[in-house]
């Protein structure tokens, strides 16, 4: 672990408060030439409202420009900044340092995702499993060809699936899932929740198609309702609920 003291001399318009500080440990790993993760420690001042992402960007600005981190919206809308923060998958922009109640903050790349470098991970597998469950309305007719202008839904019908449409594909659920820790072929809570999102949509006619897709040895049956996916979801999607409701169709609890 490398300790880097002091702030670099740099002009900044933002005054940095030094009333409180934490030790930020960032996992550094480049698969091209590193064999294992190393942690670099930085002493970062913070305020009550400082997020982990801001602390990481502070490191990039003043200490180590090479820290690889993905981020975009800074408001828990895009899902880019997912990472392990003190061992739990969270969005860095949505996690305040003050709420972690720790003087040492450890940030690592999300597990169950191949690492590109440092905190940035590859999302190909998530995209593949998401694509596998046909995440679109399946029906023979379209809104262009029917007599009615669009496929109408009542507020109650929307309520059945709107929660699951909040998914921002951040991947935190897949990272938290205990099955995905060992099973490379598991579809994952994100894809299964999205499968339910479309099955529950009254406009969709592809329920049987999707149920057949997920009815395999690494499909919905490898979910054991540990609930960790719902614990970490930052948008209230509650994938565990969606998966169990989806399984209810297959077990005959729902029709």
């Amino acid at each position: 672990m490398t300790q880097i003291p002091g702030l670099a001399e740099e002009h900044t318009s933002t005054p940095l408060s030094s009333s409180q500080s934490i030790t930020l440990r960032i996992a550094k790993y480049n698969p091209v030439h590193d064999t294992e993760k190393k942690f670099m420690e930085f002493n970062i001042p913070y305020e009550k409202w400082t997020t982990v992402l801001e602390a990481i960007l502070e490191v990039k600005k003043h200490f180590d420009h090479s820290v690889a981190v993905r981020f975009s919206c800074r408001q828990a809308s895009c899902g880019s900044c997912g990472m392990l923060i003190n061992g739990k998958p969270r969005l860095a922009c949505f996690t305040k340092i003050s709420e972690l109640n720790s003087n040492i903050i450890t940030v690592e790349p999300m597990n169950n995702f191949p690492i590109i470098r440092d905190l940035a991970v590859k999302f190909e597998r998530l995209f593949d499993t998401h694509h596998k469950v046909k995440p679109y309305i399946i029906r023979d007719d379209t809104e262009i060809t029917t007599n009615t202008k669009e496929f109408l839904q009542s507020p109650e019908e929307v309520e059945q699936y709107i929660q699951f449409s909040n998914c921002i594909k951040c991947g935190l659920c897949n990272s938290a899932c205990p099955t995905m820790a060992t099973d490379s072929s598991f579809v994952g809570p994100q894809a299964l929740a999205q499968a339910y999102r479309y099955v529950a949509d009254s406009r969709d006619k592809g329920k049987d198609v999707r149920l057949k897709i997920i009815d395999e040895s690494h499909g919905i049956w490898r979910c054991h309702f540990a609930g960790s996916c719902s614990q970490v979801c930052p948008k209230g999607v509650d994938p565990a609920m969606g998966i169990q409701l989806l399984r209810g169709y297959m077990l005959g609890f729902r029709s």
Partner: protein
Amino acid sequence: MTNNSENKKGIGGMIDPRRYGIERIAYLLMRLSGLGLLVYFIAHIYETSKILQGQFGWNEMIASTQTTHGHIILAIIIGMCVFHTVNGIRVMLGHGGVGVGTPTRPDYPYSPASQNIKHKIGIYSAIILAAIAMMYGLAVMFGELK
């Protein structure tokens, strides 16, 4: 830290119950109790086959299993059996969508409805009933109760 390209935590990640609440602990205990019960079941089928060796063979088996260690192991098995059964019923109902809540428009702080008090009570009930069963079993085996 895993050294594999998929960055999977492996078995360590699967069995680590920290940071995710009682539901994750219940998942781990369900797996452990299931494996433990399977091992016991196989051993039980084997030990009860000793009846075919007549009274001598049976008594020999009883003498080797009805020991202090044997009683403690059996008490653990009793606990595993009760936990696995009660939690299994809870999980089966959950798998059918029973008690996991109803979909609604999510609102901050986005508490997951599926991780609700009903399932938590189910888990704690399984643990408590397993503990009671273990205590009863120990009392019977060590002669406190008939």
